[in-house]
């Protein structure tokens, strides 16, 4: 019963406030995430799920209107500290986006990208990383004879798994997924869900989803956001079976509807 082992907290978020100019989009959010778990972020559109997710790898930094206060500690480091190098931080935190966004490069070069920008040129190292990442992303068998083909030539579901492989190739510890299956057909979505289940043995995963069934299927813990407030956070089965807050109940029953 390995699962029962006391898990370490890998992400600690404390008194987080985010504004886009005057718009207060995350309101005093506190959220701790344990290592090697899957955490689902749910809530109505615009409640701040993506904003929270993108805080963790500092992707909001590119938005000029973005203002942040609070602390987020990842692996013991305050990631908004001035001494933190964002590039280094991101090598440890992979991200998968809503719409598959492979580079207009070959499958191989897509997966090898992260290692190449770290200056790794050794062919054997790259070959091995490409193979193992594609295997982890359950794409290897479909593309192994065709690694030189363009990443954009794959189907949507394959592209998304390619993007997952790309993120895994640099061996991050955390994987952020923002509605990774919302642009995919049910079969591709099911594949990705299976994959998430496999991946959580090695990675800490945070997934934003609008699909309640998906949240219950893949996640250990669920956080429910509502207009910038973290309303409820707990074990997924408890949250869905016995939501404490009225809003949570309304949302999940409405969505299950």
């Amino acid at each position, binding site marked *: 019963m390995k699962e029962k082992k006391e898990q370490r907290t890998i992400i600690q978020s404390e008194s987080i406030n985010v504004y886009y100019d005057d718009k207060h989009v995350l309101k005093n959010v506190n959220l701790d995430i344990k290592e090697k778990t899957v955490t689902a972020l749910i809530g109505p559109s615009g409640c701040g799920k993506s904003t929270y997710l993108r805080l963790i*790898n500092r*992707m909001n930094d*590119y938005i000029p209107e973005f203002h942040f206060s609070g602390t987020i500690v990842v692996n013991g480091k305050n990631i908004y500290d001035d001494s933190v190098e964002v*590039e*280094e*931080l*991101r*090598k440890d*935190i*992979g*991200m998968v*986006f809503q*719409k598959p*966004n*492979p*580079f*207009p*490069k070959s499958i191989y070069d897509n997966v090898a*990208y*992260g290692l*190449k*920008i*770290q200056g790794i040129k050794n062919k054997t190292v790259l070959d091995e990383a490409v193979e193992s990442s594609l295997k982890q992303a359950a794409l290897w068998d479909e593309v192994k004879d065709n690694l030189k083909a363009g990443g*954009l030539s794959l189907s949507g579901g394959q592209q998304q798994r390619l*993007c997952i492989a*790309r*993120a895994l190739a*640099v061996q991050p510890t955390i994987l952020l997924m923002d509605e990774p299956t919302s642009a995919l057909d049910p079969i591709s979505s099911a594949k990705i869900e299976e994959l998430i289940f496999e991946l959580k043995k090695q990675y800490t995963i945070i997934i934003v989803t609008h699909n309640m069934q998906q949240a219950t299927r893949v996640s250990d813990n669920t956080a429910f956001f509502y207009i910038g407030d973290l309303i409820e956070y707990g074990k997924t089965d408890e949250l869905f079976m016995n939501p404490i807050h009225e809003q949570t109940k309304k949302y999940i029953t409405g969505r299950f509807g």
Partner: protein
Amino acid sequence: MIELILKFSAFVSIGTTMGILYVLLSESIPFFREVSLIDFLTDTQWTPLFTNKHFGILPLITGTLTVTLIALLVAVPLGIIIAVFLSEYASPKFRRSIKPILEILAAIPTVVYGFFALMTVTPILQTIIPGLSGFNALSAGIVMGIMIIPMVSSLSEDAMYAVPKSLREASYAMGANKFQTAFKVVIPAAFSGIIVSIILAIARAIGETMIVAIAAGQQPRFTMDPTVPIQTLTAYIVQVSLGDIQHGSLEYKTIYAAGIMLFAITFLLNSISFYLRKKYQEKYI
């Protein structure tokens, strides 16, 4: 009514092109009755205005190529660096204000560039390269390169700016910095647009007349040496058109033969860029 005007203007521009082609062909056919096409394409001397006449177009082509190549060596790297800077680094405000300024470069009359090459750039280059002639391909090429920078930078920047944000985000999320993202993701993704901008710049450089007529000399030479006087296709056409050569003579008809050559090269380049643009247009929508 508007439709009629549009149709009319379309007709006028097509008609003009056809007219030019007709004149070029009809005037050069008599030329090729007197000069064999083989000689025209293989002879390495071009001396139609001398007593010992040779009609080899190659010297004019090497002259044109030399100047064009030098212009590209200046315009492509600088144009792309400017494009990367504007598209990836500059604030939107800065981008908006700098673009028109760059476009002024393209609006300066070429005769001004010509004299700038002859009176300013050549003397400066002569202090660095002692054997440089007063007329040479190098200074004309450099100045032409400066002139076409905005063509390369503006179209390349449009292509880079059109690269979806999601690709940049993917790259940043992998731990890439701006520089890596620009050169490993944005430029490859915008590659076809950049190539088109370069091809159009080449076409512009090949067709450019004033700068070369003023600063590169008037001596058709079968060489790629940038330090000696040369002549380009365009400069030759100007020289003959403005000279006192008898209209209708064989010497006069040479300009149509040179014109056909010029037309063929630019037409080819434009077709390539048109094809590339069509081919890659829908890729990221």
